[in-house]
């Protein structure tokens, strides 16, 4: 790991002042579970780290009239503990499932909500220093030619073939959560799905945040009646899921769907919102409706030569998440 300067500001304003508009020059440090590994491999080489862990307001979980507001440096462990105390697990089960799915005591104790949402792709070409797009000198894709068993099966028509690694993002998107961003130009609030973008050229970021901006909190709006996340994972211990689905449904008194939001995880360069979910509105969400949604999602998939199995897994995750949500799990 290269040498770097270290700062530990006490306020968000101070932290913003210590960042740099030039991408890669300064990095905010939260739990460090992703950043420090990337630095050890020289994938990122910041000259300064700005620790956010001394900023008390970023560690707060508050329940207000807008919903549940979670500070960006709330640890996953603190989130789970708070759930046990406040019963939010029962109100936003999709987020609860996704958080509890990070099966490492250590990552839960160190990792933060903001860091989880903004972690870099696990793509092995990226982690070997070939850049997010992993292009050869002639512009061809290493991913297409090489081993891409864990790569994108949606949204991969451009040069980006990696999958976004966040497990919490699909759950937050399904629940309609918003994100607060602090910036030198002032603060703004966006939908969580707007945090993410698919880079089209080398050097572009996979997030909509500028290099001198900070994610400060996410807010879950009033609880949806029914939500769930289901992750298909390769092993019982810690690992990133192969595919995940988060769903949230509002039903009327007669059991008809009033609103539906579905997001898939680990299948596209961004958390993947499923527009086909809108077709559920006005219908009873029965087995046929769920099967129809899964089929529609599969139809829009564009797997590479070696990862069509992920389309199957995404459908499985989607069907099981729907079943869990409707059961009121």
């Amino acid at each position, binding site marked *: 790991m290269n040498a770097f*300067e270290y700062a530990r500001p006490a306020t968000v304003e101070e932290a913003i002042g210590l960042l740099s508009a030039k991408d890669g020059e300064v990095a905010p*440090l939260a739990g460090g579970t992703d950043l*420090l590994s990337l630095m050890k491999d020289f994938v990122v080489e910041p*000259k*300064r780290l700005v620790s956010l862990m001394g900023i008390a307001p970023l560690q707060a979980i508050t329940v207000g009239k807008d919903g549940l507001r979670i500070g960006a440096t709330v640890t996953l462990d603190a989130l789970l503990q708070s759930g046990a105390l406040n019963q939010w697990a029962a109100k936003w089960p999709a987020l609860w499932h996704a958080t509890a799915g990070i099966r490492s*005591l250590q990552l839960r104790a160190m990792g933060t909500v903001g860091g989880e949402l903004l972690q870099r792709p696990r793509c092995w070409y990226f982690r070997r220093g070939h850049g997010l797009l992993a292009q050869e000198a002639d512009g061809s894709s290493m991913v297409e030619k090489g081993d891409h068993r864990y790569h994108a099966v949606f949204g991969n028509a451009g040069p980006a073939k990696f999958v976004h690694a966040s497990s919490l993002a699909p759950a937050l998107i399904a629940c309609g959560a918003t994100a607060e961003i602090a910036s030198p130009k002032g603060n703004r609030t966006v939908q969580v799905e707007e945090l993410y973008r698919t880079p089209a050229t080398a050097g572009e970021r996979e997030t909509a945040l500028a290099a001198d901006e900070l994610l400060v909190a996410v807010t879950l709006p009033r609880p949806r009646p029914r939500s769930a996340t289901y992750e298909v994972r390769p092993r019982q211990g810690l690992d990133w899921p192969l595919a995940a689905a988060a769903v949230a449904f509002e039903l009327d008194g007669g059991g008809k769907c009033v609103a539906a939001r579905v997001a898939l995880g680990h299948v596209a360069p961004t958390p993947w919102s499923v527009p086909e979910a809108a077709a559920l509105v006005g219908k009873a969400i029965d087995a046929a409706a769920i099967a129809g949604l899964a089929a529609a999602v599969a139809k829009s998939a564009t797997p590479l030569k070696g990862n069509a199995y992920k389309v199957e897994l995404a459908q499985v995750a989607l069907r099981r998440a729907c079943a869990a949500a409707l059961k009121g799990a």
Partner: protein
Amino acid sequence: MSRSDQPQDASGVSRRGFLKGVGAGALAAGAVAPAAAALGAKAGPQAAAAGTVFGPAPVAVALNVNGKVRQLRLEPRVTLLDALRNHLDLTGAKKVCDRATCGACTVLLDGKAVYACTVLAVEANGRAIETVEGLAETHGGAAPIQKCFVANDAQQCGFCTPGFVMACESFKRANPGATREQALDGLGGNLCRCGTYHGVAQAVVDALAGKGGN
């Protein structure tokens, strides 16, 4: 890197002592003061105004390890694991993957299990750090969880064991009434290439049941 804060080992040449000697030479050769990082002109004055920028040269860090506060001077890039192993001679926590994955470096930070390889020592400044060495000190010998590991043959080559012991200890303290299923969930952050998971799981179950003492 100064090692003058270390107690001198008066004993004869041991394997550990020999390795330490070699390591000290390597450290001295590498201890060239890094030039000040060239940050953008924009960051400079603001940083000075905030008055909170340290390094990249060594900075004072106070590590509260196993109840004793140790004063060190460390570059901000030094991890907690390297500080424990290379500066405080606490070699129980092991460096294996060095990428927050395998758990061999697990120590407790404010009572929670963390991957010491991926915590900066400066971030642990002033916080309570507990290592596997401290566990034995507290219990005047093997702790209950360690006795349960022995009773269940929960190690083979043993290299992952200190990390597993600390993760299990942390889980046990936080979840005294946990079921076997929950205990398995609590072990997800540690890897054993020998495949001793069955024994480790049984060791935690036994420790939760009060076997091995309190």
